[in-house]
């Protein structure tokens, strides 16, 4: 159990704000990439990297570290921003995002960047990696925990449910699934394109302990992660209600910001909002 108090909450909020700034600036520099879904996940990822997980940036391959798998790999900028903020690599590298030869690939590549635990991007696959990692922890009698962040649109991939079935079957209580429930996918609202709802009920039916929270409320994220630690005999699925594009008013809840990077004037506007 980790302490939840005004100091830890403020600290994580500030980290999330800095992560959002870096998401905007690196995407602005890259000129392409996934803005909306990176911003929606910033509070969850900040909570994991700066409060929840055991990590040592000096030893990225430390065997006992907790593992984070970005199953929604297109949100790579939120992961890169968190890793840079944590000290896995120099912040300047963020400006190389999506450029030829950069360790910061358009989707995370574990072979190019230390700190990235899984090469993801093709949706539905990261969760299966996380199941395998949680099984490995059990085999090796290690106490590390495994976290997988999924998109809500990603839940349309059948493989997600194969993996969830396996996680429950093998009683992986060292595994936490977090769903970034921002309600939008490329072609429109998830409810119109192909509804995976009701999401919480589905994960419960598959055998998970389900916690539904506001994915931008740091205290709620923390409480959910602590609840997952106390859950024995099954994985936990945290269904986190979020806003796509969160933190930049002109991007919030706008589907067109799924796979588009901000132009220079939009970068200025977004950064001004995040700094106010």
């Amino acid at each position, binding site marked *: 159990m980790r302490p939840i108090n005004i100091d830890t909450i403020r600290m994580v909020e500030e980290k999330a704000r800095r992560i959002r700034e870096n998401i905007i600036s690196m995407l602005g520099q890259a000129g392409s990439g996934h803005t909306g879904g990176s911003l929606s996940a910033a509070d969850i990822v900040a909570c994991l990297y700066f409060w929840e997980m055991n990590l040592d940036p000096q030893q990225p391959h430390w065997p006992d570290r907790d593992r984070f798998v970005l199953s929604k790999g297109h949100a790579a900028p939120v992961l890169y921003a968190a890793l840079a903020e944590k000290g896995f690599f120099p912040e300047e590298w963020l400006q190389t995002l999506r450029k030829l030869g950069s360790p910061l690939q358009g989707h995370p590549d574990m072979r190019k960047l230390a700190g990235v635990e899984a090469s993801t991007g093709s949706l539905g696959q990261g*969760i*299966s990696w996380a199941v395998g*990692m*949680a099984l*490995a922890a059990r*085999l090796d009698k290690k106490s590390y925990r495994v976290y997988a962040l999924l998109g809500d649109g990603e839940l349309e991939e059948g493989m997600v449910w*194969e*993996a969830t079935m*396996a996680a429950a079957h093998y009683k992986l209580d060292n595994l936490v699934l977090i769903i970034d429930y921002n309600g939008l996918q490329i072609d429109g609202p998830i409810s119109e394109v192909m509804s995976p709802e009701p999401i919480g009920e589905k994960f419960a039916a598959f055998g998970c302990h389900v916690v539904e929270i506001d994915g931008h409320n740091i205290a709620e994220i923390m409480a959910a992660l602590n609840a997952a630690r106390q859950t024995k005999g099954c994985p936990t699925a945290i269904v986190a209600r979020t806003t796509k594009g969160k933190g930049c008013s002109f991007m919030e809840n706008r589907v067109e910001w799924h796979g588009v990077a901000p132009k220079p004037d939009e970068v200025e506007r977004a950064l001004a909002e995040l700094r106010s």
Partner: protein
Amino acid sequence: MEKQATRDAYGKALAELGRTYDNVVVLDADLSKSTKTADFAKAFPERFFNAGIAEQNMMGMAAGLAACGKVVFASSFAIFATGRAFEQVRNSIAYPHLNVKICATHAGLTVGEDGGSHQAVEDISLMRSLPNMTVVVPADGVSVKKMLHNLYKMEGPAYMRLGRPAVPVLYREEDTIEIGKGNLLRDGNDAAIIACGIMVAKALQAAEKLAAEGILVAVADMHTIKPLDQELVIKLARQTGALLTVEEHSIIGGLGSAVCETVSEHYPVPVLRMGIADAFGQSGTPDDLLEHYGLTVDDIVRNIHKLLEKRPL
């Protein structure tokens, strides 16, 4: 002649490997009795995970286990391991260069009665096209055992193609099987047969028949399709001037294609590709199917004659 199915050899060798190395983990997708991973499961239940009928998730779990230091052997039928889960193999195993060895059984026509839906005739082609992927097709039980050891020792992903029916044992325990190094089982200067898998034994029988007619053909067991032993292919092209490739696989994308790619760039000679001519399989006994699709000993003999007519003198 002693016979053993390559899948039976795989099951036994895998259990043995598990005894020697405790980081060996085995996955299956509800076919462990057929793929013979059940032998390992029985010996090491804590290191065996059944994924159920969910090959995509099996490949993803394999990736996660491998990312945590395990050497994972993932088994299913070839059709599902390479077809159903192709993109998982590509993105979660080959792309991140993980230590996952996909050992697929029931490859090719000799699945038999289950029919075309279950007969993978394109698996070698699919796996060979993936960067980082090593592709091996052992010819008998002894080479399976040796190859399994090699796969454990090598770093990175691999595909091993195994069959359902019993096939003649060709190798002795003291013989060497090395990844990327074909074995010349019989020498000859008139033509060369380059074969893999169950067709190697048939190639040797054909060579025997041809010898009785005074035609001396070399026979190579090209158990590694990728990386291909180019040196041996070029040597045989130079030595004989005519190559016959024989595989229980589509003539598109498999051993025949790999050999053609090599000789056309390095030492062009006439090549005939024996295999399944761009068609799906169907139900039947393995032997009836091999006959129907032209993959018998006599077909090899006939094709050698055809090839020799084509060869420039």
